[in-house]
């Protein structure tokens, strides 16, 4: 069930009421939350609940066996088996069709047509996310960062917890398992933050993301050759806003719902379009995924330990694989290539900066400035560098988004070609859409602590005030939003 629906509201009301009633019986509470999570997941398709359970069982068993193993060799072998099984499940559902299509094409080219076992495979919702969480758990046990959990209930609940099950954030076992062991508590900060994040998330998704998708992005990306430069430019900026609001909106709601159940998650987005470099962008965008890629892909590949060439290669490979993770299409590969190449070039450029003066201080890196800035540097120069960095970074990200959003490589290339044609006026460059895109981008430059400050201000508010805030907040969102409920973009991954 989707978050912004009455079905979910009724579901959550029941889960909230019953789970807190059981707070003095932690094991029973966990069983209830697990059952609720499986009910939530089965609402899409009950068959996938078995897949979820199977994946959880693999990871729990692997964790136990690794924890009980004596030798390093045995631990490594078990880790290898667990990761292979996880990736095999993910690979089958995500890439089987692509693999067979490609194989059929190659065989046809070679004159060796065969009847290949094509299957109609439905991609289970959230498979990437719960697979990554499973891999995260067994790897952390192997690295001895956490102890293997004895209770299967804890592992099953960690992997299937419904707020973050289908589209993240990718929660670390080290962050969540201790909270399952502790007594659940609900304080005023969690209440006010939870309610505020749910409202903010609903607004981002139902108003901003849905308007931009239905009124602009979907139409322009469907056939970019029918539009001129102004529309294409506006549409790619709009898509940058749409995907941010769609994804971060979901994360906000997930974090808010978890907070109301007494669980703390980490932030998943931190105003990414104010980044002045790609490196900074990936510390602000989908933080849980970029940290997962860093810890479970980049570092095992060697990280930054092997010198400049090896580091750049590892960075590049990580981004390309991150692109492939999104789906079996060349557009996602190119999206990863753009980010990987940009990060590699950025790293190279930064490495050529001169050594700092004795009075140096560290500042945020960006194009036009180094990671080290002298305390004597004029403030105007720093602002210029930062502004230039933000603009360059944003446009590189937008270029990559064209490939990410386009249905095929041909569409993406037609889109880029169309951006050079400014002979005709824009049809979609009307005040409403332009203002929506501009305001959404400008919001990235508001103080980052605004949400926390607002949540702090709400803490003393009583239940009637909170009720009216929530009720009228949702009412306004429904009044302003377009009709219908579109699925979240990241459900397809």
């Amino acid at each position, binding site marked *: 069930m989707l978050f912004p629906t009455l079905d979910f509201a009724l579901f959550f009301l029941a889960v909230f009421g019953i789970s807190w009633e059981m707070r003095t019986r932690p094991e029973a509470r966990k069983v209830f939350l697990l059952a609720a999570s499986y009910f939530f997941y089965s609402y899409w398709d009950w068959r996938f609940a078995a897949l979820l359970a199977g994946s959880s069982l693999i990871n729990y068993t692997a964790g136990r066996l690794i924890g009980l193993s004596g030798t390093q060799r045995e631990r490594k072998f078990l880790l290898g088996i667990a990761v292979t099984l996880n990736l095999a499940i993910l690979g089958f559902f995500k890439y089987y069709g692509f693999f067979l299509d490609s194989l059929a094409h190659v065989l046809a080219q070679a004159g060796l047509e065969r009847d290949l076992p094509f299957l109609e495979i439905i*991609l289970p919702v959230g498979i990437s996310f719960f697979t990554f969480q499973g891999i995260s758990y067994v790897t952390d046990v192997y690295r001895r960062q956490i102890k293997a959990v004895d209770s299967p209930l804890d592992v099953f609940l960690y992997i299937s917890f419904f707020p973050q099950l289908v589209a993240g954030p990718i929660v670390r076992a080290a962050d969540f398992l201790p909270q399952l062991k502790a007594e659940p*508590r609900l304080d005023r900060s969690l209440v006010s*933050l939870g309610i505020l994040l749910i409202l903010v998330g609903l607004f981002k998704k139902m108003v901003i993301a849905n308007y931009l*998708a239905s009124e602009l992005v*979907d139409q322009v990306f469907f056939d970019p050759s029918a539009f001129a430069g102004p529309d294409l430019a506006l549409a790619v900026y709009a898509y940058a806003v749409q995907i941010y609001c769609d994804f971060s909106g979901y994360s906000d709601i997930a974090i808010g719902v978890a907070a109301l159940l007494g669980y703390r998650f980490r932030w998943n987005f931190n105003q990414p379009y104010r980044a002045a470099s790609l490196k900074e962008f990936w510390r602000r965008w989908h933080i849980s995924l970029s940290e997962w890629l860093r810890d479970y892909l980049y570092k095992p590949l060697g990280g930054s330990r092997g010198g400049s060439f090896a580091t750049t290669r590892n960075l590049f490979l990580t981004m390309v694989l991150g692109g492939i993770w999104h789906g079996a*299409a*060349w557009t996602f590969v190119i999206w990863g290539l753009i980010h990987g190449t940009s990060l590699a070039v950025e790293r190279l450029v930064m490495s050529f900066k001169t050594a700092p003066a004795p009075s140096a201080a560290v500042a945020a890196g960006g194009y036009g400035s180094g990671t080290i800035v002298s305390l004597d540097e004029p403030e105007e120069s720093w602002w210029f560098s930062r502004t230039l960095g933000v603009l360059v970074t944003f446009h590189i990200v937008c270029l990559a988004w064209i490939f990410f959003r386009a249905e095929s490589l041909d569409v993406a290339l037609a889109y880029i070609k169309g951006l050079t044609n400014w002979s005709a006026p824009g049809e979609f460059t009307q005040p409403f859409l332009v203002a929506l895109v501009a305001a959404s981008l400008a919001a990235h430059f508001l103080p980052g602590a605004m949400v926390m400050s607002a949540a702090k201000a709400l803490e003393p508010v009583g239940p009637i005030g*909170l009720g009216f805030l*929530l009720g009228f907040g949702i009412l306004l969102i429904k009044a302003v939003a377009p009709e219908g409920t579109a699925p979240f973009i990241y459900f397809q991954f």
Partner: protein
Amino acid sequence: MSFALEFRRKQQLLEHEVQHARQANKGFVSMPADCGTDTKGNRRRVLFALVIAGGVLAIFNSGGLVQYSYDFADSPGGEKMIEVSESWHDMMSESRMTEFIDHIRGSIAMARESSWQDLTFGFAAVPAEPDSSTQPQPLIVPANGESLPERKEHQVPEAAKPAGPIMRASARPSYPN
């Protein structure tokens, strides 16, 4: 003096603990709740707030309830549910409770349809001197004496309109070029 030193020492320890806790909880949306948290009270507070929110939505967005009930048309009791929700919606409409959401939707629809010309005319309009003997003159008169062109609605070419669902479906594989 020992009291002052002891006070200072406790303050520094507290600052150090706060700093350490912040560091340990870096990236989390909030700090962990402490032992004295009134969980029961907060739970009641949230439940009450959720009920009030539901009431606000039922009153001012009764049309949404009707839409929701249509999903249960084929279920047992579905017809009754539709009847009740429609009656409730009629009551709310008669009490003008639904006007609030209709007014906002109308304003948003107007904003969506507005063009740059509308904004320009809106800023450039000068109130005319009241003169009952003359007809109101247009603010802008074309040089050739023809009437002003009609505002062009933005039209999407037929070919550009997606035939299927507007949200992008799962990525389809494409052959390498």
